């Protein structure tokens, strides 16, 4: 009885805190939309400069089927790019963390790849992997994801408490055991931080790839086409979809992160 009584108020407080955590940003967002709408109407801005949110919402509803088709088409590219880029990044990060010689010889190439302006590179990738193929856009996304994931994986694997290494050494652990028991768990927070950045980069990469050639029902082409026709509320509606993809993927990574490393200090607030 007393336990329940003691728990009830605190869980009530927790719910209130969570609600406040959601409500505040939501309130600010809605307020922002309202001010935007009022300003556009008040100043009489032409819709090809900045459409009112209400018009964007209208476009959203009217063109939902084609927007949805474009979104799913682009989403496939983003997810494929994210997987290819992150997988390659984690692999290379692990390899360079393990062999110093490789790190020194491969890092300049990775830096070089990273410093290629993606705008310059996207048409070439379209050329290599097919202008109308989803693979070429996935590759643009993968190139963008690769570097942060690789660098953070390598750093995480190397960023290990020296005392932990001494402990395993005194227990005469094999190198594979050190890797599995200490390095990988220590690297996880770094890898997930990189993956969060990578979701955004993959979204950007896929859409940029589409600017240089893709079917008309893809987010990138949709935005470009209706911007050219000055049907900006339709471009904006597509941008809202692109944002939703980015946010959705980010939250997916956060969810996986919680699942994989529930022990991490950033998730402990509720347990104290």
């Amino acid at each position, binding site marked *: 009885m007393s336990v329940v009584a003691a728990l009830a108020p605190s869980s009530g407080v927790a719910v209130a805190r969570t609600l406040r955590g959601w409500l505040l940003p939501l309130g600010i967002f809605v307020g922002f939309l309202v001010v935007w709408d009022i300003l556009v109407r008040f100043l009489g801005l032409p819709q090809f400069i900045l459409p009112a949110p209400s018009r964007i919402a209208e476009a959203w509803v009217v063109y939902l089927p084609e927007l949805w088709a474009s979104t799913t088409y682009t989403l496939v590219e983003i997810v494929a790019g994210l997987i290819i880029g992150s997988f390659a990044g984690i692999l290379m990060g692990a390899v360079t963390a393990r062999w110093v010689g490789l790190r020194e010889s491969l890092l300049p190439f990775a830096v070089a790849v990273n410093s290629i302006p993606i705008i310059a590179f996207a048409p070439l990738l379209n050329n290599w992997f097919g202008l109308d193929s989803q693979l070429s856009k996935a590759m643009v996304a993968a190139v963008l994801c690769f570097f942060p994931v690789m660098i953070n994986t390598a750093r995480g694997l190397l960023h290990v*408490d020296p*005392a*932990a290494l*001494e*402990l*395993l*050494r*005194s*227990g*005469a*652990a094999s190198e594979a*055991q050190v890797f599995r*028991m*200490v390095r990988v*768990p220590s690297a996880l927070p770094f890898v997930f931080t990189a993956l969060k950045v990578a979701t955004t980069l993959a979204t950007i990469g896929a859409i940029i790839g589409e600017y240089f050639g893709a079917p008309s029902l893809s987010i990138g082409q949709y935005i470009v086409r209706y911007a050219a026709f000055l049907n900006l509320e339709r471009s904006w509606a597509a941008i809202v979809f692109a944002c939703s993809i980015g946010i959705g993927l980010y939250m997916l990574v956060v969810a996986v992160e919680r699942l994989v*490393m529930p*022990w*991490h*200090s950033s998730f*402990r607030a509720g*347990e104290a």
Partner: protein
Amino acid sequence: MTDSQTDTVVQLSGVSKVFEGRGQKAARVEALSGIDLSVRRGEFISLIGPSGCGKSTLLRIVGDLIGVSDGTVMVNGKLAREARLAREYGMVFQAPVLFDWRTVQRNVELPLEIIGRPKQEREARAREMLALVELGDFAGHHPWQLSGGMQQRAAIARALALDPAILLMDEPFGALDEMTRERMNLELLRIWERTATTVIFVTHSIPEAVFLSTRVVVMSARPGRITKIVPIDLPRHRDVETREMEHYFELVTEVRESLRGSEGEAVDPRRVAAEGLSA
């Protein structure tokens, strides 16, 4: 004669350690010089000395975490490296070094996991060790849910999991407050009596060294040398009352005075310079 030989767990002869400076500006540091020490089975040896006297380095040399520049280290009749590969050591550091991603129980299982013991045996042994350090009720907790003293007890349980020939402890209670530290000292003595293991213990605290040890090894700095070995002839079983015995205070004073002597040597720059020239 044969008895006393087999009774020797650690034999250090003429051990020295020089850290060669890397780069042009880094100096060459003579961390240890001419260390001879033998530790008998069941002894509790404390290494004490000013900062930079190489006591932690000496502990790591015994545990084969650092190699020697000169001299030999024999543990149980084997070279230190062979002893390490035969898992004869248990190590406890100043930080508990428990892994957040493992429960307390699974942290204690770690050394058993390294040598590939079956799950059931691991769990049974870890439970036994946790009971020994009186953490049985916390097996399922995660390290961050434990206080500093409890974390260090878990680290001791882990170090004892393989029933090591020798327990190496590097200022294990240095980060704890005075009250917890005194409680942990009693706890450690109780564990030592029950397991009859041999302990080498590095500390900054004179009372702690005297209270715990059978012998206190006093060291001086630059280069690290053994200046005196003080036998602690207090009764083997010690408790709160031991800290109030007159002989306890006499021994604390003796260690303090030997330390003062060694420190004076260490900080005299002319002497250091002269030694540098003659070397």
